[in-house]
Each structure stands twice: as C-alpha cells, then as structure tokens.
C-alpha cells in the first residue's frame, strides 16, 4: 500500500540530497571537529560551511548560529539562558497556544516563583497586540511567542512583535520551527533576539536544531562542559546532522517559491474540496495568515482518532487535536484557547503537506474523505440532535 504523508508539521522526510551529504560523516569522516589533526579538522570545515548555509537562509551572521540537539533544546536554552542572564527580572510573557517545548517551561517557571503571563487568542487564533503591549514592563525578562502555530498554521506578526518588545529593552524569543523553510525570513531586518528551529521539520534529520542568538544578546549557556559553539553550547557536535541541516537550509531557500505556490495550491485544493464534500466541517485558524502547507479542519459530531484510523487504512497519514489521540482526556490546548467548541475540537484533523506531495495524493484523499466522515456519522448518536 502506498503511503500518503500529510503529517509534515510532525516531521518530514529527509531529502535525498541531505541524506547524501550526511553519509560520509558516519564511517569515513568520523573525526571530532575539535581535534588538532587534519582528519578531525577537515570535519570542522564542514561544520563551518553548514553554519554558513543556515545563516544564509535566515539572513544572519554565521557566528549567530548555535547548533543544538533539537528545537526543544533551543527553546529551553533561549528561555532559561535569558533568565539566568537577567536574574533581577521575574516576569515572562508567552501565549496560550505555544508548543509544549515553550509552554511547559513557562509553567514550570511559574512554580518556581516567576510571574508568567499567557496571552490569549481570538477565535481565529490571533493575538491582541494591545494586550501584549500593556503587559510589557521593567520586570519583564523575556517575551517568547511562536512564529507560526504547529496545529493550525496561524502565523503571528513576529516582526511587529519583535519591534514592540525590543524597543522596551526586553529580550524577544520566537519558536520558529514551523515557519523556517516555508516563509522567507530575514533576521538582518528584524530585531528578533533569539529564534529556534528544528532540522527534522525542514527535511533534515532528527536530532539537530538551531538557536539563533543575535549579536549582543545576553544569554547564559544551558549545557556546560565544553568549549563547542563558542562556549555557548557544550557537547561534541552532531556532525552528520549539522552537515545535513546545512544542506536542508540550502534546499529550503531553493524550494521556498514551490512551498508558496505549488504546495499551497495543493493544500487549497484539498481544503476546499473537503469543506465542499463534507457537511458540518470548518477550518480552524486564521485563513488570512497561515502557513502555506497546513490546514486544520473540524468535523462535527465525530472523533478525530476514529477518522485517523480510517485514513490510515488507506495509507493516509494526518494528525488530530482530539483528546483520544494524545492519551490525555482533553482536546488540544490550542483549539481550546481559540474557543473552538468541544463538539468541533474532538473531531479536528490536521493535514500538513510538503514539497514531496503530489496532486494524485491530494485527489485520492479528496475521494476518500466523504465516505469516512459519512461512515463515522452513521455511528454517532449526536448527528441531527445537536444544534451548533
């Protein structure tokens, strides 16, 4: 059976070119880039080149790139490293719709006595910038707000937010793992201090991420024990992962147009066909400002995990914000923050595409969706009972 992979916000396929670039660094060029000998030193040159490739995609200086083991490590480093650097400030501002890599850290900080503000969002998942502005004060150590939401694809105006926050002398961090490679970014033109990205979300391997640290930003290291990354992140470099990430960033720049034209057209086709063929379905998120590859659709009266299993039988991979898929008992915190009613939150499905998807795959899914939804609604006691 063929696999139709529409779960690219979870992880992506490693690009062939990336895999090829990584291969020599396992069995042949396995030296430690910190070594004095040529054998290790030549590997160091490749790490440097990867740093330049990442910097080129982000529009920053290579010295501003710190390689980490993942996006989560980059997020933790950004938040905890900033707080350690400005110990007299005790307030942290974030949003209710952040990825757990940020939200869980902030809630833990709250338990440790920090004053944490979680900004709410409206029904389409948008922030109220006025509310953000009213919260900024001299006690605020860091504002951490994601660039785009992983579940709905809603994009936040981070350039505007960065200006608002940094003007007040406050550090601004953005978790940009979903946006890098999908929306062009130029860090030389915005005052963002800290930015996290994750390799495996843009066709590099799992186990490598980046924290961008703008020159002059005060941040304490998170991992201690070595001089790597200019003393800002100890630990022997994940050389194959880093080399692959460099290549992936080069490819991302090349395919940026494709993501915003062809991939976006596929997403739009999938979305509008499903909305047309499945009654009582609706989009979650801000249709105006949204990642070009993501659509999150709620199907009333039925439950997401059941939909996913039906899709799975056709080889179609997607994900859901329903409670049952996560093993928790409550549906997605993002959809709940948006005020999506429970009736719709439990039946939400996210399709996230990539440049590897084809029109045939989209057509096949469009053909299968109505029968899946209809089948589950036949089983549901709520169909025709509940008014929404």
């Amino acid at each position: 059976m063929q696999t139709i992979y529409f779960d690219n916000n979870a992880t992506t396929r490693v690009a062939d070119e990336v895999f090829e670039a990584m291969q020599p660094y396992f069995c042949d060029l396995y030296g430690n880039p910190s070594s004095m000998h040529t054998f290790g030193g030549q590997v160091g040159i490749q790490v440097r080149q990867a740093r330049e490739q990442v910097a080129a995609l982000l529009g920053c200086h290579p010295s501003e790139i710190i390689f980490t083991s993942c996006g989560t490590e980059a997020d933790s480093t950004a938040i905890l490293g900033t707080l350690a650097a400005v110990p007299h400030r005790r307030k942290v501002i974030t949003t209710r719709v952040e990825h757990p890599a940020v939200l869980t850290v902030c809630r833990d900080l709250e338990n440790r006595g920090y004053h944490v503000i979680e900004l709410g969002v409206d029904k389409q998942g948008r922030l109220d910038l006025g509310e953000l502005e009213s919260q900024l004060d001299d006690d605020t150590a860091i504002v951490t707000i994601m660039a785009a939401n992983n579940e709905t694809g809603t994009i936040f105006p981070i350039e505007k937010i960065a200006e608002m926050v940094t003007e007040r002398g406050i550090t601004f961090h953005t978790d940009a793992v979903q946006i890098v490679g999908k929306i062009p970014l130029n860090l030389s033109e915005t005052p963002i201090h800290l930015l996290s990205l994750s390799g495996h979300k843009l066709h590099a391997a799992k186990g490598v991420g980046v924290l961008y640290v703008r020159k002059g930003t005060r941040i304490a290291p998170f991992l201690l024990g070595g001089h790597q990354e200019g003393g800002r992140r100890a630990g022997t470099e994940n050389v194959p992962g880093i080399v692959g990430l460099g290549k992936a960033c080069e490819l991302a720049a090349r395919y940026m147009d494709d993501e915003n034209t062809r991939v976006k057209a596929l997403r739009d086709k999938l979305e509008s066909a499903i909305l047309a063929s499945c009654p009582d379905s609706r989009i979650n998120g801000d249709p105006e400002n949204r990642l070009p590859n993501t659509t999150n659709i709620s199907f009333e009266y039925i439950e997401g995990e059941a939909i996913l299993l039906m899709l799975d039988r056709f080889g179609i991979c997607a994900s859901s914000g329903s409670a049952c898929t996560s093993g928790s008992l409550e549906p997605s915190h993002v959809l709940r923050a948006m005020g999506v009613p429970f009736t719709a939150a439990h039946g939400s499905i996210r399709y996230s595409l990539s440049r590897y998807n084809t029109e045939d795959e989209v057509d096949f899914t469009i053909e299968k969706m109505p029968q899946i939804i209809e089948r589950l609604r036949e089983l549901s006691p709520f169909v025709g009972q509940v008014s929404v």
Partner: protein
Amino acid sequence: MWEYTDKVREHFFNPRNVGEIENADGVGEVGSLACGDALKLTFKLDKDGRIADAKFKTFGCASAIATSSVLTELIKGKTLDEAMNVTNKDIADYLGGLPEQKMHCSVMGREALEAAIANYQGGEVKKHELEGHVVCTCFGVTDVEIERVVRENDLTTVEQVTNYCKAGGGCGGCHGEIEKIIERIQGEKASRRVPPVPQKGRKLTNIQKMQLIQQTINEQIRPALRAHGGNIELIDIEGDKVTVAFRGMCAQCHLAEFTMKDVVETKLREFVSEDIIVEEDKDSVEEGHVHKG
C-alpha cells in the same frame, strides 16, 4: 500510535449492531460531546425476557466504537440479570485487551448497559444516574463509580483510576481524594503517587515553611484554579501571613474575597500550618487585563 488488537480493529472497522431500535424496551445514554465519548444503547426483549436485539450509536475513538459493538454482541440472548453481570473487564477481555489509557471505554459500555436496564425497570431514566458525591468535577465522576472500577479491576494507583473512568484526568485537584478511596479499598496494596502530598505537623524552619507553602500552592491550589481559567501568584510570606494575588478569571471574580482566599487558606492550613492567614494583594492586580476563553 495506539496498539490495538486485531479484534479491536475488526470491531472498529466492521461494527456490529449499529443503530437505534425503535420503541426499544430500554434506552441508556452515557457520556457527552464535551467528554470526548458518548454511547447510546437500545435493546428489545423477547417474550421470555431475554435481550432479543441490541443496537448502539457511539461518538468516540476506535476503542469506544469497538467496545460498544462488543457490548451489544455480549448481551444478546441474555436475561437482564445475566446482562447485569457483564463487567467492563469482560468487554476488554473479549477484545483481547485494550491499551490502559483506553480502559474507560469499556467502563462506558458497562455504564450504558446499566442505564438502559434502569430505564427499562424504572421507566423514565435514560441518562446515567449519578450515585454518590462527585469527586472529579472536571469529568463528573462520583466516589461510587471510582470505588467500583477500583474493586472490579483491582486498581492501585490514581493514574489507573484516570485510565478506567477519567476521574483525575483534568485539573488534578481530586488526586488526594482518589488516593484515599484507593487506600480505603485496597489497604496496603495502594501505592502512593510520587511525590507524596506535603506533610505538615513537624517543626519547620522558615525556609522549609516557605518552600512548603510554594509547593502546596503549586500542587494543590494552582491546578484547580488553572482549570477554570484563573491563576494565583505568591507575593510574600511574613511569619504566618501569606500574601497572594489572583490572576485571570479569579481576579475578575466578584466573589474572590469570599471564595478564593478561603480556599487557599484552607489548603495551606491543611498542608502547612493551622496558623496560616491568607491575605489578598489587590494592588498587584493588573488593570484592563482580560483573559480570553
């Protein structure tokens, strides 16, 4: 990805007895859209008082649908007394087991059956009746229901209870009470969660007292407030006087003076010291700050 048995998958993809019996002898409804799963069971008796036909409609995940399907298969041909003996374990066993976190689906099946039989016997009652007092307010689970899943499935931890009947799966404010129920039934076998509930009663240094107050707020008070859109911040501790500020929904609540302060004081007295006095710091409440749902 859940590891479902072939039998679960089979009953999910090809559920038996889907639908609603018209003029049914018994109708049972449990769960709700908000809870994430719901089941409506209808049955008809033959002239010998045996269940001649049973049908279901279920909103929920694959295991909820599969357990409903099995339930209807299991009760067909049984008398009502025989059907009453079907336990959630029978349903799960028939399916070759369910993932731990999905056991509540099998319990929902058993509850729907009880509700349908009660409906037949008592006439009006179609909804699952709440017996006992509600322990878990997030999911509306009573002590009677918790006791039953603990007994029937030999449960020893709060986590298991959550898996079997959802109790304790929301704000977590009822974990202490669930623990007490488990201890009452299981005695020695009950395993306490880690870390244990803060213990009072010993002589505390100032630093220990401050830490215990912070810990009590973190573990016993904040989760419950958070579940209702509120929050609490510890502002200061001077001797036995604890100053806190309420945030979010709690800050706007007009009853704050009578409810929140008392709740916090009661908890701190329970876990830290009888002498604790709680005061609310109104000055630190941010103005014009409105949390959105």
